[in-house]
């Protein structure tokens, strides 16, 4: 056995120790979905009876549901019997050096400025035994545990904190919510679980990035984050590195619950494989994300930078139930080549003096189609609710499209709702101005696009914002000139 394989195994074992792969073995079940498959998944994960029942309930409902067709995207019908619903995280064959990595992937790593050691890790190259992220992750978890913060894989939480899981699972996104949420509820694989106790301010950004092979958690991810009274947590999902994945359909569910005076910031960078230049392949990213601001003065902020996937279909929303609660949604979505995105948010105002802010920036290039779809609903008891929405679209080239569908449902006359929208084409005159100052066309476009997205980027944690900016330039590569 070579040294490098040993290292990988050490890493794997360490990971196991901290529970990221608590209960899975390297195996896969045959394609297709049935009650037996649901039972098998639950059994393999050693789940309690109530959870199996919950999955089955979702499965039986799913059978009666129709796949939604109202969204502004086009794709061939999905054969749900042609999908493998349970696949333990398999370790890919370790590569010996970065030279063996697909040059295309390597080039993207370089463009993103990812340090060499991290590149190796992301590409599955054997790494040195002392690896920063791993040691950081370890100290990190110990520190969190000391403060009473629970941060672990979902499967692990089912074993160690079943009461919390039972109490909150499905409380924000019930299995009845929609076709893909029902499917996820029946067959979800794994994801993250976070609980921040009363009055605790989580001292660091929680990130799936620290969970090294989190990308293998599979296509049906389930995440649950609970912030108890007066607590604060910022969670980062995803990674700017290109995520290649064999699974075409990703149907994740994320639920957030914020109690009185609690704040949850949830930031996403999504860079799944978008398909090739001709629109072949690519991930279908059909996600249901919702936060319940249940407590008074609670606050939930969604920030997303969506650059990947062939199709993105998601509306991270907030239910503003507590009086004085706040919901925010900041989004950058880019579509290049043949990518399609139908994304936006739902702000449901139920409590008094609730406020919501929506800032959406859509960038379309190539043949990309970008749709903003957002719902603002002011309930009849939501006295003095306020909403501000701003949706801007930027077009690069003349074969792409931008669409905006705002839905407003206002049942209380004291509400103040503002909506602003703009569509602009990236100007030849702007590009020429930058070039006359010595900037190359590509740099000029990046600068103009970054400026366009500034209001969203500044909501991201600093280092994430820098990466997001680079990522944007990679994903728009070749769109001009």
């Amino acid at each position, binding site marked *: 056995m070579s040294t490098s394989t040993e290292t990988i195994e050490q890493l794997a074992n360490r990971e196991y120790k901290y529970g990221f792969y608590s209960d899975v073995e390297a195996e896969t079940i045959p394609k297709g979905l049935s009650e037996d498959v649901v039972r098998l998944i639950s059994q393999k994960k050693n789940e309690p009876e109530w959870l199996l029942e919950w999955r089955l309930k979702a499965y039986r409902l799913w059978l009666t549901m129709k796949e939604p067709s109202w969204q502004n995207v086009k794709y061939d019908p999905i054969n749900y019997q042609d999908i493998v619903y349970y696949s333990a995280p398999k370790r890919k064959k370790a590569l010996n050096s970065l030279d063996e990595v697909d040059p295309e992937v390597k080039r993207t790593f370089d463009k993103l400025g990812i340090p060499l050691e991290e590149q190796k890790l992301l590409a599955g190259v054997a790494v040195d035994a002392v690896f920063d992220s791993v040691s950081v992750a370890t100290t990190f978890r110990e520190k969190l545990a000391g403060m009473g913060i629970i941060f672990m894989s979902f499967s692990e939480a089912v074993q160690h904190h079943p009461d919390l899981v039972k109490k909150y699972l499905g409380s924000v996104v019930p299995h009845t919510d929609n076709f893909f949420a029902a499917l996820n509820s029946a067959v979800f694989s794994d994801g993250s679980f976070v609980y921040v106790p009363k009055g605790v301010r989580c001292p660091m950004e929680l990130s799936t990035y620290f969970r090294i092979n989190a990308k293998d958690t599979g296509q049906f991810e389930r995440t649950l984050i609970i912030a108890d009274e007066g607590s604060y947590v910022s969670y980062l999902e995803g990674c700017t590195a290109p995520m290649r994945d064999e699974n075409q359909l990703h149907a994740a569910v994320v639920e957030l619950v914020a109690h009185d005076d609690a704040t949850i910031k949830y930031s996403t960078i999504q860079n799944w494989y978008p398909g090739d230049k001709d629109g072949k392949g690519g991930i279908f990213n059909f996600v249901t994300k919702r936060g319940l601001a249940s407590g008074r003065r609670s606050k939930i902020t969604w920030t997303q930078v969506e650059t990947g996937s062939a199709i993105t279909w998601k509306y991270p929303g907030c239910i503003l139930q507590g009086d004085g609660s706040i919901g925010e949604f900041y989004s950058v979505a880019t579509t290049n080549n043949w990518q399609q995105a139908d994304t936006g948010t739902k702000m449901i105002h139920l409590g008094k003096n609730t406020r919501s802010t929506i800032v959406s920036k859509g960038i379309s290039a190539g043949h990309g189609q970008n749709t903003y779809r957002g719902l603002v609903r002011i309930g009849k008891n939501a006295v003095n609710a306020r909403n501000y929405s701003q949706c801007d679209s930027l077009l690069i080239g003349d074969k792409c499209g931008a669409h905006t569908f705002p839905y407003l449902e206002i049942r209380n006359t004291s509400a103040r709702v503002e909506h602003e929208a703009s569509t602009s084409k990236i100007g030849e005159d702007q590009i020429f*101005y930058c070039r*006359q100052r010595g900037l190359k066309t590509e740099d000029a476009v990046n600068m*103009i696009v970054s400026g366009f997205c500034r209001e969203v980027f500044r909501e991201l944690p600093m280092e994430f914002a820098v990466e997001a900016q680079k990522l944007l330039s990679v994903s728009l590569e070749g769109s001009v000139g």
Partner: protein
Amino acid sequence: MLEIRNLHVRAEGKEILRGIDLTVNAGEVHAIMGPNGSGKSTLARALSGHPEYEVTAGEALYEGRDLLAMDPDERAREGVFMAFQYPVEIAGVNNSYFLKAALNAKRKHLGQPELDAMEFMTLVQEKAKLLEIDKSMLTRAVNEGFSGGEKKRNEIFQMALLEPKLAILDETDSGLDIDALKLVANGVNAMRSPGRAFIVVTHYQRLLNYIVPDYVHVLSAGKIVRSGGKELAHELEARGYGWIDAA
């Protein structure tokens, strides 16, 4: 420095310049005057490589090299600067961030070390003083919400920072009140040097009271119809462009 021979330029399907010959040496200031539609701005834009201006004949040598074969950004990095008649707004892009990117693109091209944030700010403060540039102009987005006068001052400020060899001012005086005009002229005069040449495009003689040219050329219908010293501008002021056309 610049040698233009028989330059013909088309824009929007029309031939606008019909054979321009012009030689500009280092250290000289040339004023290009002429009535509206004579092709003054077309000359400025063609020299900076604007994609909507197509050179159909002739040549332009810049320091002995074929200027017209260079991309607009390469021309800029090689030291050709154009102050825009209508500076463009770029939302969300910080003005000093933009300037730093531009300056470092040029320095990199010339094999000079790029400036870090501290060095850059020191330089900016020095140049900002020269043009009485308000600090808030540096932290705002490029030209966004700038008044007409602020935009033009920002152009000259960029010129001061980028230190071009050949500076082309495209009707920089239009829309400026007398105080702003003096400020801009002072900035330009401070930059006059034996190694640098200016082409000042203007409709009015007024600017030339403050930026005194070595040569004045009068354009009409796409050709230089008269060249002379600074006194030619005064003559034009007194007699109007009609005098040229009639001659």
